[in-house]
């Protein structure tokens, strides 16, 4: 088991190197530091000295890959690539273009993101599975049909409208929760409820429909027929046999998102003014802060790969038929 995990982690390294190279190429080769400096200092009337100063302050004035003027091993290390990209492997994200410490920002902003994303994930999973089971229980009746139609209709609504509609209805008309904002400790609860509810509702369409197909696939298996043949009621077949087996694909499909929960959601965080990583990224995009975007791209891929590894491990934990080689 441990051997397998180690091997998976080793497999992840080349992928991370690839991601790193892609981001490096995007941010420094396609788009030179000179361009970045000019964007930040304003387009017109920029003196070359100001550009040079801006670059020097942020360490962008070094050669890209190979420093021919330096001595010894500095030839490879005293470059933009080494300082800005290789450092990310040690989660050293450096400073943003505004001079703030990115790693510190990420650490403090992670928790509000998680406070929203984790309840959305857990409650959403429970709600979706419940709905899917209801539809599977009443399969091929009008209830099932109505459920599927409802799911497709809910899928077709853009996530933006759930947020706008929810904010308008709950906060503006009914004055139940504040429209946006965030607070520490238990005061945060009243800010969290609405985004969580909207997040759950927005996910029902896709989730419940997908889980329904999984349930229906399981109900057509032989073991279900055997269970019915020995006289079990439909309800106990569904809960005792189908649910357990259907949870394998559902859980393993869900595991991959768990690490990404830290990243939060771009849209809902910025709508609700939550100081999480999602709104951090949006602000960075709008302010054209390349250092932060670069860090977030890398962090996102790391978390995704961690999610993939966790998925493989969770397969072996919940499904005894799968053996690790």
């Amino acid at each position, binding site marked *: 088991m441990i051997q397998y995990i180690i091997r998976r982690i080793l497999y992840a390294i080349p*992928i991370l190197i690839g991601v790193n190279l892609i981001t490096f190429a995007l941010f420094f080769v396609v*788009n030179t530091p000179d361009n970045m400096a000019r964007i930040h200092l304003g387009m017109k009337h920029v003196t070359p000295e100001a550009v040079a100063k801006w670059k020097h302050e942020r360490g962008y004035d070094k050669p890209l890959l190979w420093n021919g003027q330096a001595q010894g091993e500095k030839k490879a290390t005293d470059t933009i690539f080494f300082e800005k990209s290789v450092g990310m492997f040690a989660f050293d994200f450096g400073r943003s273009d505004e001079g703030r410490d990115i790693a510190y920002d990420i650490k403090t902003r992670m928790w509000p993101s998680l406070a929203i994303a984790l309840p959305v994930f857990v409650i959403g999973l429970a709600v979706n599975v419940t709905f899917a089971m209801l539809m599977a229980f009443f399969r091929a009746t009008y209830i099932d049909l109505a459920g599927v139609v409802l799911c497709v209709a809910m899928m077709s609504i853009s996530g933006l*409208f759930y947020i706008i509609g929810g904010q308008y209805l709950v906060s503006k008309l009914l004055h139940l929760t504040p429209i946006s904002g965030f607070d520490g400790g238990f005061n945060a609860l009243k800010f969290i409820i609405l985004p969580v509810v909207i997040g759950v509702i927005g996910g029902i369409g896709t989730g419940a429909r997908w889980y329904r197909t999984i349930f229906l696939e399981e109900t057509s298996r032989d073991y279900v027929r055997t269970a019915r043949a020995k006289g079990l009621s439909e309800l106990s077949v569904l809960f005792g046999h189908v649910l357990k087996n259907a949870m394998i694909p559902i859980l393993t499909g869900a595991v991959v998102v768990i690490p990404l929960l830290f990243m939060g959601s771009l849209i809902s965080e910025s709508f609700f003014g939550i100081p999480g990583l999602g709104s951090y990224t949006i602000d960075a995009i709008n302010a054209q802060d390349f250092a932060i975007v670069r860090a977030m791209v890398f962090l996102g891929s790391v978390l995704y790969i961690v999610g993939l590894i966790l998925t493989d491990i969770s397969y072996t934990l919940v499904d005894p038929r799968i053996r690790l080689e």
Partner: protein
Amino acid sequence: MLLFLLLAGVAFYAWRVRQREHLLQPWRRLMRSRSGMASAVVLLAFVAVGVLDSLHFRLPLERQANNARLHYAPDVLSVFDLLAGPLRKQLEKTYSAPFAVHLFTKETIELPGGKQARDFPRLKYGGAHLRDPGADRAADIAVTAATGAFYALVLCAVMTALLVLWLARRRGVSPGTAWMLIRHGQDEIPWRTLLAAIGLLTLFVCLAALLSAKYHLLGTDKVGQDVFYLALKSIRTGLMIGTLTTLVMLPFALLLGIMAGYFRGWVDDVIQYTYTTLSSIPGVLLIAAAVLILQVYMDSNQDMFDTVAARADIRLLFLCIILGVTSWTGLCRLLRGEALKLREMEFIQAATAFGVGHFRIIARHILPNVMHIVLISIVLDFSGLVLAEAVLSYVGVGVDPSMQSWGNMINGARLEMAREPMVWWSLLAAFVFMFVLVLSANLFSDRVRDAFDPRVK
């Protein structure tokens, strides 16, 4: 140009399918499903608006006597703009509610007596023909709507009659029998549903055409443009993103996916590595990073993109490319799996034994056998792309702000959310149009999957 190639491609595909019975089979199944046909009608209506809006030309200015060269107007128009001419030109000053005759904001108006008063001024175009808007408006709207409904009824009756006659000839029965076939839904194609969908659509078009000539059907936006017109124009942007992205992604996914599955070995390793790496970067972030960089590039090379329209087009194209780059991995993985399975099949083994080249095997034997996967996933992805556009425009990395799109409409309206009373009509327009398009795309893709997936049979 691209559009015509695409249309030609679709026509060619249709012709090929007609020739071959086994290709025709799934389409027949699709034709028989009611929701599939109804959503296809709606989708076709959207595509029609999009195509009309894509036929660009520039209006020639009057030829001057001393100058032989023909001059063209600076703004590029489309056929759709001509059809919706009044909608495009009737600009109000700022916001106005749907069917309103007054502006949404108060202004100082000069009264006939020389005095000044603060009131909601009359609109320049919306309901301008009414003498006493307070009393006449409701009656006028009702009369116009009734006229529209009447036209729609006549059109529907004509279409039904034509359909009955055509079906009677086709099936070799009398028109009366054909009518009974349609009414009781006994023919294999669900004509009843089809007629109902077309009827509703005709009703909507007639009402919209008559009413929007007199009023601003969905109000006007901040600079006084008709929201209904903007929403219709946005159809093209939405469809463009869907189709262009698919066109970008398809060759990658097809070529690499089949190659990985067919050749295996190191080719497989390299391709798998590539798509795992790409798909491990969060999609939105990669798109954001790429669009940011494009923006920087455009800002530093401003002389290369002279007009605003050219910049918007480049940005749209680039967005589609980057969306394609992020979305080919899913299809590629599916195709690889299928190719892995296919290459072990007897007919491929036989072809290899006969000494058929790799290229021929892929083109003649593997490609036709994975086409159903390609079709299903294209149709499935389409609705996602339309929704993605709105989100990306909101994040600020979507289409150019000067371009009409639903995302930009939502974005503009969002800023007015705090206003009291709220400016809700832009949101409503974007919501309704997106909902109808995505819903019909989703329903259609469901039916396509049912019809084409060999496992569902």
